[in-house]
């Protein structure tokens, strides 16, 4: 006689009675703790930091309210700028008196570059706002270039 399906299922359910010795799970937990501690000691600090960092990155979730807050901030900024209460890009006008002495000192002009047309930067009523911001140092020595080779590079012991 063959076991029918019901009898087979009953027989299989009896396998639930196959149990490890008493106290097994408590001992296994202690062994688990011991292995965890050993693993922690084995891993270097850098590895542990990297794992924490990686898991932090993967588990990072943008909170839902952050989207609303970002949109509200954008609308607020757009309203303030659009209404003209706070114009963020007002240009400051330099007066002629603010211009550096470089414009009137030919020696300093030469120190920057002989080909630079400084007349473009002279203060005038039409375009008073463009000011070169590069200033030559007062202590810088002028350098002269002849045939593309600095004079100062001339070897002192050339025969």
């Amino acid at each position, binding site marked *: *006689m063959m076991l029918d399906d019901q009898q087979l299922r009953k027989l*299989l359910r009896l*396998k639930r009675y*196959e*149990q490890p010795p008493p106290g097994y799970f408590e001992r296994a*937990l202690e062994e*688990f703790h011991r292995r965890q501690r050993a693993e922690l000691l084995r891993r270097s600090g850098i590895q542990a930091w990297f794992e924490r960092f990686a898991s932090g990155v993967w588990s990072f979730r943008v909170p839902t309210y952050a989207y609303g807050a970002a949109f509200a901030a954008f609308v607020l900024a757009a309203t303030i700028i659009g209404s003209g209460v706070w114009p963020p890009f007002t240009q400051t006008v330099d007066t002629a008196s603010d211009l550096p002495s470089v414009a009137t000192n030919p020696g300093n002009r030469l120190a920057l570059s002989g080909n630079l047309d400084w007349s473009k930067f002279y203060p005038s009523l039409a375009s008073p706002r463009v000011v070169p911001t590069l200033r030559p140092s007062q202590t810088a020595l002028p350098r002269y270039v002849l045939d593309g080779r600095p004079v100062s590079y001339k070897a002192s012991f050339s025969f």
Partner: protein
Amino acid sequence: MDDQNLPDDETLVRRTQDGDTRAFDLLWQKYSPRIYALIYNMTANHDDANDLLLEIFAKAYRSINGFRGKSSFYTWIHAIAVNMTINFVKKRGRRFQMSLDDLDANVQNDKEFIDLTATNTPIREVDLAELQQRLNEAMMKLSVEHRAVVTMFDIQGMPHAEIAKILGIPEATVRSRLFYAHRQLQNYLEEFRKK
């Protein structure tokens, strides 16, 4: 702490993710007997089941920060356990010895056991130890995938839907695997009877 009084899984998982190792111990307390039974019935070897149990919980602990709660913790840890055990059994191959746990003495009082041994069945004349041995040998003749389904459904009493979620297969596949496995087990046990 009694299993009934343990906080729910979601709370324990969140506490573990926040670094509370005691919360993970409670998850161990809650799930280690079930996970052990699953592995044990798939490997039929206590020592292998012991090693795998520790490895599975170590893997769960390392990965718990990646647990998003899309499935229950129950499903998640069972999926880890089944996958690791299937890989282990495939690597182990056929060269192994069964090392079975003792049958709890309470089996003698189980209604199903009394029914099975009282009626005119092929197992009537077989003693308990031999019955256990025969059944486990028959189980070991199944493929590990079929054994997993039989363990979860017949021994652990999980519904088809839960097994399908754990294995990541359709419910229909679970049912067909069960049907095929039952037929095979019936044939193997019949062979024993004839011997």
